């Protein structure tokens, strides 16, 4: 059975997408990403440290020929900042995709959806593949699809919280309401959370902290990979309905008397 996720004409080889922040060093980043099996890898955009003479670059460890590099606008609080960051990211020449974040508040790191929609409109017009980070709000998701975003990236819980899927019903409604891919972004804490996201019918899960800040990031990356695969397969296999009462799985005929 072919079950391949396609986005902007690219066949995505894994439904687990990963971030590159919070690792001890680039070597650990590389090992964890390899263990995760991820194909899409998100990176942040920051000023070059011109006094740092080591000149090590993340992309020396994450080969843009091997991975789909997904630059993000993490840390942007206004439309202007997010659009400027996205344009710079594209000018770096490895990707015209952007994980668009416009953050509303430092304490919650929740998205500012009004600004997000505005920034998304600008970037879609400029030909970016726009993947917006948004709330688990089905109406917002539809608006983002309508203006030409390539996928929706709803949060499961606040960024870095590890609280898991806080509102599975909203995620399901959101999933059913749009025809572009839905990628849960933020809030996953452990493997079962990732499996739940996939069982709800999401097309992929993006995570960073849950892997990078685990005691053993490489093993956790492996666990997440299996969870995402298991969750997807379970979703595609069609789970049984939930019932209040028991239903025997052995034949009722032929009992000894």
């Amino acid at each position, binding site marked *: 059975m072919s079950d391949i996720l396609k986005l902007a004409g690219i066949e995505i080889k894994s439904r687990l997408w990963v971030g590159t*922040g919070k690792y001890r060093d680039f070597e650990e980043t590389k090992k964890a990403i390899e263990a995760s099996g991820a194909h899409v890898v*998100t*990176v942040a*955009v920051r*000023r*070059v440290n011109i006094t740092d003479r080591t000149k090590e670059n993340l992309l020396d460890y994450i080969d843009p020929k091997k991975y789909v590099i997904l630059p993000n606008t*993490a840390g942007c609080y206004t439309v202007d900042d997010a659009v400027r960051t996205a344009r710079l990211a594209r*000018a770096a*020449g490895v990707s015209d995709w952007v994980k668009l974040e416009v953050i509303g508040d430092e304490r919650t790191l929740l998205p500012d959806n009004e600004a997000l929609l505005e920034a998304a409109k600008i970037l879609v017009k400029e030909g970016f593949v726009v993947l917006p980070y948004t709330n688990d709000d089905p109406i917002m998701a539809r608006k983002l699809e309508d203006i030409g975003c390539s996928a929706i990236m709803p949060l499961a819980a606040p960024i870095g919280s590890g609280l898991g899927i806080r509102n599975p019903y909203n995620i399901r409604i959101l999933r059913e309401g749009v025809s572009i891919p839905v990628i849960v972004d933020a809030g996953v804490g452990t493997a079962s959370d990732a499996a739940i996201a996939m069982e709800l019918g999401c097309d992929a899960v993006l995570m*960073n902290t849950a892997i990078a800040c685990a005691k053993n990031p490489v093993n956790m990356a492996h666990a997440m990979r299996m969870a995402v695969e298991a969750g997807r397969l379970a979703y595609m296999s069609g789970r049984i309905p939930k019932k209040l009462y028991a239903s025997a799985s052995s034949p009722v005929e032929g009992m000894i008397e």
Partner: protein
Amino acid sequence: MDIIITINGKTQNIKEGNTLMSLLKFLDINPGRVAVEYNKEIIDKGQYDSVRLKENDNLEIITFVGGGNV
């Protein structure tokens, strides 16, 4: 003679006559790994050789770093 320009928010003295490309080389920065905003305007990679730096220019040089959200 030196000129004063701003790179990533810090003022720097550099030799007169530098292009953007020669500055990146001097700073030991791989042009393939960065993007440059020159006086608020993004410069295409192919143009690095033709941008000649002058007094009070403002450069933002960015690259990709580890990050997931925020």
